[in-house]
């Protein structure tokens, strides 16, 4: 029983990290029709930047802001100067983001070497939370809390704000949104920066749990893809539910069948693609 609860919480924590990554990816894909294959690299680079900030003596919370901010700026530059030049050429955009992902990944090996680096935990959140004989790391509970708060904030942004209404209009019918006077190019920049910042900050947040290592990018990117395939394109709820499903499957899978944890990821993909190609909460096929 304890095993199921602890692994369930672990799954929830991993799913939370996935949600922080995948929500931005899904928003960018839903609105801009860009499959941002650099998203995993943003996550890793954010974690490295945060790590360097912490090693330079910066507080963990500021390091999250620095990691997120650095990737936000990087995303803004890439969106403005590269992706915008390729508007209307989705495949060219994918290839560019793939190239950028390689450049970032190799640059990270260059700067931070190939060894895995643990990111130190903030001292306020070390230790374990105990109920009777169950103990669970406080930091993971904190990550779960952050993801739920983020989900609520994004929901509020998308469903209750003017900006969110514009984004939803853009996701549903871009030419019509443009015709109604929405500045879609500005909208694109905002969403791309938001997604990038989430990936960067998520990387720092994930550091104490996953640690940072070369290959973190290509470990996380396919999981984000699977989440979006599972949950549906451009759907916040889909990204949320998809992340939790993958988080649980991955966590239980690794504990029960360590060799096969990756094979099990096939199952939800096979089921969803066979039975519901739009994803669980998507309205359009991917």
């Amino acid at each position: 029983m304890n095993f199921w609860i602890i692994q369930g919480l672990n799954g929830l924590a991993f799913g939370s990290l996935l949600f922080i990554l995948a929500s931005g990816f899904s928003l960018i894909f839903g609105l801009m029709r860009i499959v941002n294959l650099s998203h995993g690299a943003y996550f890793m680079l954010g974690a490295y930047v945060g790590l360097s900030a912490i090693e330079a003596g910066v507080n963990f919370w500021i390091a999250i802001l620095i990691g997120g901010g650095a990737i936000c700026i990087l995303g803004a530059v890439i969106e403005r100067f590269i992706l915008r030049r390729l508007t209307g050429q989705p495949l060219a955009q994918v290839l560019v983001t793939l190239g950028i992902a390689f450049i970032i990944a190799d640059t990270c090996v260059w700067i931070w070497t190939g060894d895995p680096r643990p990111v130190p935990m903030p001292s306020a959140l070390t230790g374990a939370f105990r109920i009777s004989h169950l103990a669970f790391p406080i930091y993971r509970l904190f990550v779960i809390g952050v993801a739920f708060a983020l989900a609520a904030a994004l929901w509020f942004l998308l469903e209750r704000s003017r900006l969110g209404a514009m984004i939803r209009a853009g996701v549903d019918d871009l030419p019509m949104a443009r015709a109604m006077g929405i500045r879609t190019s500005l909208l694109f920049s905002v969403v791309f920066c938001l997604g990038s910042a989430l990936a960067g900050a998520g990387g720092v947040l994930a550091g104490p749990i996953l640690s940072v290592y070369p290959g973190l990018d290509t470990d996380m990117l396919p999981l984000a893809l699977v989440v979006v395939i599972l949950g549906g394109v451009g759907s916040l709820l889909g990204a949320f539910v998809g992340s939790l499903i993958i988080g649980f499957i991955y966590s239980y899978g690794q504990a029960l069948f360590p060799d096969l944890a990756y094979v099990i990821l096939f199952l939800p993909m096979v089921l969803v693609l066979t039975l519901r190609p739009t994803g669980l909460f998507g309205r359009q096929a991917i």
Partner: protein
Amino acid sequence: MRAPASNILLWLIALAALLALPWVVTSEYYVNIASQIVIAAILALSLNLLIGFGGMISLGHAVYLGVAAYLSIYLTAHAGFGHLAGALIAIGATTMLAMLFGYLALRASGLGFLMITLALGQILWGVAYRWASLTGGDNGLGGLKRPHPFGLNLMDPTIFYYFVLFFLGIALWCIARFIQSGLGQSLQGTRDQPRRMRALGYNVWLIQWLSFVCAGFWGAVAGLLYAYYHQFVSPQTLHLTTSAETLLMVIAGGTGTLLGPVVGAALVIILKNVVSAYITRWLILLGVIFVAIVLFMPEGLVPGIMRGVRALRRRLRGDKMTDAPSIAKERAP
């Protein structure tokens, strides 16, 4: 449809050059690189079936290379199968995997297809990396001896080169036949006008799926030869970077042409070997090439460089009259 005489001449020259290669470059090192190019060319040809003729951009084509290589090494070196049985089972099983993956990936099209192929490929990479008891994990799987078909000593680099060249010849011939066949023609129809093809009563899904399986089959052949060449396979073979390198071969040589992927394979393999001799940052270069191709030469590296050379030559001659319209025409997507 008959090829013009100049084309046939070009083919004969290319064939003669390929056959004479081991006499021209006598160093074993270069003959081995030539073998690598030929194997990569078979893989790139198979991917070009999807990209160039089917309009389906796959970022998971390393799957067929890697799975066939893993299977053939596992079966012959670790499970006690004979060479022929191991090879046939490896290719057959990999083709069946292509049937499954094709079914899954073709639930979507365009970007969705690309995402699904990438995700499936990386999941398989994870399997090869983590399932250490079967795949050897990060250390990879080795122990394969090259076979001796018909008394040929494949350990000899020159003989091995002719061996893989023979398969490249068969692959080229089959793929050329495929493109001209009714199925290949309708595949190009689904690339250009999927809706119209559907309206004309073609089963677009079936055409794309059969082509996907065909590409998987030739990918598996490349994987088998890859296993014979390296006598070793590691998760890196299945990794996204391998798929991306193969994709680069196809777009570098120019998609949708028969020989483009062969030229692209030669370019990428030579570049990779030359660069690796001087610096260790191959991945950065790969990324830069991707970005540069997309931004500056969207029609492919070889046609793009040809265009640049032509434009430069015209400028040197001071002849600007014919310049503008031809570039405008070639730049159109």
